[in-house]
């Protein structure tokens, strides 16, 4: 496996981005498509154009569905806006066809920007419903505003005679545009931005705690998807010569979802395969029966229940499963040798080392009548390993969640090096170089261990908006270094959700370290571990902290672990601070003993 990786490394990132099978499939499809008008009757060029439009539409939707994990049920709106905008500019405003061709997608992107601004604030079903509502608004406008759009009679006469010469020229023109778009989106999904979107799909909370502004990235994905759908709309308008409201009716929103799922939404070419299959089926079945929707529905039922991975996933399963990472998911080659990780030098750390890193003032959080955190004040000194202990329900996790902005506090303040951070969103807090782990391990389960760390590094380097550079070529050394540091370099290509519990915890630690933290917050780093494993893993943390000069704040309820590792201990009980001091002090504190022996104070 190691040799395999190095071979990939020698070939360079470009070859990795375009492995031979991908090139062959891509070129083959293109050649076949280019030959279509020559070898089969002219009628089929219309069918082929339809397939291309649908494939582009499906690819654009899959940026949201397959890559970002957003179920949009209103994507046809942007086909509509793109097509109608280009058509209206061309017909009613006398804009030249070429300009209309460009302005249509821009209009679609603007519409997506407006609608997406609101939609990305919602999750799951509510997001789907809002995108649907926006699509219905677009539908109603084009349906009812007859004087402008022609209403149900459609917008007709979109034939830019001067530029295009009949169906064949039309066909090649569409083919070229669709191929370019497909290539552009391929580059995008393999870029830093593409990987960040995958991270959001896998685990938005973790992604945000890598320092990524999740909403912003979702919005950007929404606008890009809208733009490409707009291109599909323009091709549709000019190749058919007309636009109709039914392209925007709610049932039309299902088309791209259908082709993406049918082909396989976790494979880049899934929507293309789905579009070819779907359109050919419509055509073939349509010749024998008028009840195509019945057949289509039956296929969908079958796919939804038995083939959630779509056609491509089904074929992959036939060829022997998906336990290994696909070639595209494989880690970039590991450098033959690299210097051990050095502590980042850029920290503004005063020489005396007794500076206050974190100060918490009178922090409160109530859930209904429960005072989970009831006026906690706390100070964490630089370079210390500081533990917060307390029985279950003492408020440790609630406190932690407020420190990183995951929960909004009801009152109180948090200062990081004297700067108030209590009002900042999590990604901004993480961005100021505070890292955290969660009590219930939070990693990107569908991605490999390598990709987990890589994305965290990209976030740290503010590369997440880079939509051109292949992500696998970036931060190679540092990714390997971090994996090495936590002892996971042997499992780099494993899908992280399949790693053992302890390995997942270590991976989360590597993600946290990728942020070059000054302060590391660990919420029960040993939860669910065997006693021996607990000690080892805390020792690992302590060693790394010393090596890199980190300040660590962690919660724990195993006393042995705490006393073996902590320089300072804060004891919480019923939402308040019971005691605070060095290990010896705490060990001999009467009240602490009472709490831990179960005697009321």
């Amino acid at each position: 496996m190691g040799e395999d990786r190095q071979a990939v490394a020698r070939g360079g990132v470009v070859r990795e981005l375009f492995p031979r099978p991908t090139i062959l499939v891509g070129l083959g499809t293109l050649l076949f498509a280019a030959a279509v008008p020559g070898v089969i009757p002219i009628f089929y060029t219309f069918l082929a154009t339809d397939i291309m439009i649908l494939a582009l539409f499906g690819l654009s939707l899959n940026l949201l569905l397959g890559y970002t994990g957003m179920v949009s049920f209103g994507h046809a709106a942007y086909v509509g806006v793109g097509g109608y905008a280009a058509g209206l500019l061309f017909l009613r405003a006398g804009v030249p066809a070429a300009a209309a061709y460009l302005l249509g997608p821009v209009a679609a992107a603007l519409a997506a920007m407006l609608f997406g601004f609101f939609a990305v604030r919602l999750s799951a079903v509510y997001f789907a419903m809002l995108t649907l509502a926006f699509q219905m608004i677009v539908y109603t406008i084009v349906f009812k505003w007859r004087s402008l759009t022609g209403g149900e009679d459609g917008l007709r006469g979109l034939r830019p005679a001067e530029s295009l010469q009949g169906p064949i020229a039309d066909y090649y023109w569409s083919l070229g545009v669709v191929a370019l778009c497909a290539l552009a989106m391929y580059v995008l999904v393999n870029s830093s931005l593409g990987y960040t979107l995958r991270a959001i799909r896998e685990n938005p909370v973790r992604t945000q705690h890598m320092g990524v502004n999740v909403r912003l990235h979702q919005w950007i994905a929404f606008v890009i998807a809208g733009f490409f759908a707009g291109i599909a709309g323009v091709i549709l308008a000019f190749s058919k010569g007309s636009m109709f409201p039914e392209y925007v009716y709610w049932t039309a929103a299902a088309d791209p979802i259908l082709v993406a799922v049918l082909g396989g939404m976790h494979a880049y070419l899934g929507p293309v395969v789905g579009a070819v299959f779907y359109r050919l089926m419509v055509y073939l079945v349509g010749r024998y029966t008028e009840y195509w929707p019945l057949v289509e529905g039956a296929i969908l039922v079958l796919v939804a229940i038995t083939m959630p991975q779509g056609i491509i996933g089904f074929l992959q399963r036939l060829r022997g499963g998906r336990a290994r990472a696909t070639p595209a998911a494989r880690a970039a080659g590991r450098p033959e040798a690299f210097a051990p990780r050095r502590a980042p030098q850029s920290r503004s750390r005063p020489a005396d080392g007794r500076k206050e890193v974190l100060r918490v003032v009178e922090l409160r959080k109530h859930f209904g009548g429960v005072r989970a955190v009831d006026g906690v004040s706390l100070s964490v000194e630089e370079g210390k390993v500081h533990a917060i202990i307390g029985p279950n329900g003492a408020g440790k996790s609630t406190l932690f969640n407020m420190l990183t902005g995951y929960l909004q506090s009801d009152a109180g303040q948090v200062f990081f090096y004297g700067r108030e951070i209590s009002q900042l969103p999590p990604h901004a807090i993480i961005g100021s170089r505070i890292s955290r782990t969660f009590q219930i391990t939070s990693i990107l389960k569908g991605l490999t261990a390598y990709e987990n760390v890589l994305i965290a590094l990209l976030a740290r380097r503010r590369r997440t908006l880079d939509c051109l550079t292949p992500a696998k070529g970036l931060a190679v050394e540092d990714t390997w270094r971090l994996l090495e540091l936590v002892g996971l370099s042997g499992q780099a290509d494993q899908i992280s959700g399949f790693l053992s519990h302890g390995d997942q915890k270590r991976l989360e630690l590597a993600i946290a370290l990728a942020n070059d933290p000054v302060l590391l917050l660990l919420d029960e780093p040993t939860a669910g571990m065997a006693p021996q494993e607990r000690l080892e893993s805390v020792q690992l943390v302590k060693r790394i902290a010393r090596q890199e000069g980190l300040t660590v704040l962690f919660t724990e309820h195993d006393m042995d672990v705490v006393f073996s590792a902590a320089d300072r201990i804060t004891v919480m009980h019923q939402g308040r601070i019971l005691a605070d001091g060095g290990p010896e002090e705490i060990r001999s504190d009467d009240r602490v003993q009472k709490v831990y022996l179960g005697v009321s104070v």
Partner: protein
Amino acid sequence: MIRFLAEYFGWLTDPSLVLMQLLSGIAGAMFLFLVASGLSLIFGVSRIVNFAHGSLYMFGAYFAYTWIRVLAGSPGQFWIMLILASLTVAVMGGVLEVIFVRRIYRADPIFQLLLTFAFVLVLSDIAKIFWGAEGKAVPKPGALAGSVKIFGAPFPTYLLLVVAAGLGVGLILWIVFYRTRWGRLVRAARHSRDMLAALGSDVPRLFTEVFMVGSGLAGLAGALVAPIVTAAPGMDASIIIEAFVVVVVGGLGSFLGAALASLLVAELKAFGTLVFPAISIVLAYLVMAVVLIFRPWGLFGRREE
């Protein structure tokens, strides 16, 4: 300015017209309420956004046509038909749940959307195969065919029945939901089906029952609407989006919300037609969008923590 007001709001000076719109709005709200409360019930428990709910409503209308013909001549045929049509659709819903839907409760939401959308396609074709593409008219019962005078304006008697049915069903739902053991189970299932299963309830059966009740409500709405609009293809796709609007605005899972939102949407349509006929329905979608943006859990729903 005066001219603008006269042009767009002149109807306000005609009290009987205002009353007419108000009443027909209320009647429209009843259909919406019956459909939306079933949709909301199913979503609340199973978290499935059921696109096929509109199809079940359409089948209610078609079964109304079929049962009326089967029952032709028997006394009280219309009333028996209402019951039989609702029951038939309830059974349909139950069958769909048992054979298909229960396989995907834990799947990615996208597959749930896709599956229920597939139902829409299949059911619309099945309806065409059985009943053809032309509309099927269902006669109103003789006693309700005329109209009554309300404050001097004639109002179709049949719509009074619709209003009564809507209110009656609303009351029954409330009682079932808040005063029976079954209702308690349903409310518990909305919070946590796993906990309910752990406590020893037969959760799969409860889900099937919920699907049947929800579908039955859609069937009843379809049977009730059949004498007014005739049963025809396309009535599935148009009602479902309005029902979504109602459910979202009212709050997923809230009956009171569904009732008030039905009223809001129906009256918006009724009066919107007088003011801006072209965009009356856009208003409903706008309301939905605004509610989703500012209170995604709906006006009367409970916020999910």
